[in-house]
C-alpha cells in the first residue's frame, strides 16, 4: 500500500470516552489526518447507551449523521425518532441534537464544517483523548497531547485555557497558572466567560494566585 491512501475498519479505531458525558468517540479525522472537514465516529455497545453528546453545534458547522450500524434514537430539537442503519440526518448549526443507541453495537459517522469557510481542525478530539489518558493514569501522555495543540495559531487562548484545565486536574498547579495567565493575556473576555464556574479549575480556586487572576 502506498502512503497516498489508507484502509481501516471503523471497529479498529481508538475508543475514547467523551469527557463529561461518557459517549464513546472514535477519532477518525485525527487518525487519518484528514484536513478538508471534520469527520468522526461514535459507537455504543448496549441498547440505551449514550451515542451523540447533546449539543447545538455553536461552532456554526452543519452536520450530517450517517447511521453505519444498528439503530440510533435521535432527538433533534423537540422531535425524537429511531434511525436504522443507512439513515442520514442533516442538522444545521443551532439545532439541538443528541442520540442514544436503540440497538447493541450501534455506530454513527458524522461529518461537519461551516459553509463558505476553510476548515481548520481545532483538535477538540485531543482534549478528550488527553483526559482519557489522565483518567487511565498516564498524566504525562495526556499533557504531551494537550501541549502539542499549542503549536496551532487559531483560538490560541482556548488552547492555553484547556491546557490549564488539564494541568489543574493533573495536580500540576504551577504550570496550570502559567497557561491560565497566558490565556487571560490573550483574551480576557473569553476566559472570564468560563473561569468563574468551570469545575476543572476547582483545584486552583483556593490558591491566592487564582483570586489575583480572577480580579
Amino acid at each position: 500500500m502506498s502512503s497516498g491512501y489508507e484502509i481501516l475498519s471503523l471497529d479498529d479505531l481508538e475508543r475514547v470516552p467523551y469527557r463529561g458525558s461518557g459517549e464513546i468517540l472514535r477519532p477518525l479525522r485525527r487518525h487519518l489526518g484528514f484536513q478538508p472537514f471534520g469527520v468522526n465516529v461514535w459507537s455504543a455497545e448496549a441498547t440505551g447507551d449514550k451515542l451523540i453528546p447533546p449539543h447545538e453545534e455553536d461552532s456554526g458547522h452543519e452536520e450530517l449523521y450517517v447511521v453505519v450500524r444498528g439503530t440510533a434514537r435521535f432527538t433533534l430539537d423537540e422531535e425524537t425518532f429511531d434511525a436504522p442503519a443507512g439513515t442520514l440526518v442533516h442538522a444545521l448549526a443551532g439545532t439541538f441534537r443528541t442520540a442514544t443507541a436503540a440497538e447493541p453495537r450501534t455506530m454513527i459517522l458524522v461529518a461537519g464544517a461551516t459553509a463558505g469557510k476553510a476548515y481548520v481542525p481545532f483538535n477538540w478530539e485531543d482534549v478528550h483523548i488527553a483526559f482519557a489518558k489522565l483518567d487511565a493514569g498516564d498524566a504525562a501522555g495526556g499533557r504531551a497531547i494537550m501541549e502539542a495543540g499549542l503549536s496551532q495559531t487559531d483560538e490560541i487562548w482556548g488552547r492555553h485555557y484547556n491546557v490549564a484545565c488539564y494541568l489543574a486536574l493533573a495536580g500540576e498547579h504551577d504550570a496550570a497558572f502559567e497557561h491560565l495567565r497566558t490565556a487571560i493575556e490573550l483574551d480576557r473576555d473569553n476566559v472570564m466567560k468560563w473561569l468563574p464556574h468551570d469545575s476543572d479549575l476547582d483545584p486552583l480556586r483556593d490558591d491566592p494566585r487564582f483570586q489575583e487572576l480572577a480580579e
Partner: protein
Amino acid sequence: MSVAHIDELDRIEMADGFVWHPIRRHFDIRAFGVNAYTALEVGGQIVEEHAETQLGHEEIYLVLRGRARFTIDGNDHELSAGQLVFVRDPQLTRGAVALDEDTVVLALGGKPGEPYVISAWEAMFAAVPYSRTENWGEAIRIHVEALVEQPEHPALLYNLACMEARGGRHLDALLHLRRAVELESKWAEYARKDSDFAAIRSEPGFPA
C-alpha cells in the same frame, strides 16, 4: 433538520454502469461533498475509476453495506461493511466494483485548506436522466442553476451549450460554447467532434 434513508434517495444510473445517489444535493449541504453509490449488478462498477487531480480533493470511501473491491493506484483491496479507504493523494486513480448485490458505498470529499465548492460534475450527473429522455428544458435548467454559483465554469458552460444545441436553442448554445472556449481553448477541439453540436456546426461564429 431533515432525515432520509439512503435507499430513499434519487438513483441516477450513469453510462459507466454505477448508480449515483446524491446526498449533498438532497440535503443542500454546502460545507462538504458527500454522496452514495450502488451498482447495477454484482461485479458491476460502483465507484467510477478516476483521480481527483483537477479538484484536489481528499476522499473517504466507506462501505456502508455489502462488499466492494477497490482498486487504488493499481492495488486491489476487498472491503466489507464498516471498512473504509482514505485516498489522501488526489493523483491516485481509484475505483471499485460491487461484490454483493446490495452494496452501498458512501463517498466524502473536499479540498484541504479551502472552503468547499460544489463540484460541477454534480449538475452534469443530475441532468443525465433528462438528457436520456430528451427533456432538454429540465437538463438546461439544472445547468443554469449550477452556473449561478460558478458562472465561469468552462465544463458547465460547454455542457449547457450541448443541451441547448440539442434542445433547439441554437443562439444560446453558440454563446455558451464560445464562452467556454474563451475560458479554456480545449473545448473548441471537443466541439469539433461532438455530435451534440451537429445542428449548429455550420453556423457563423461556431468556434472551430
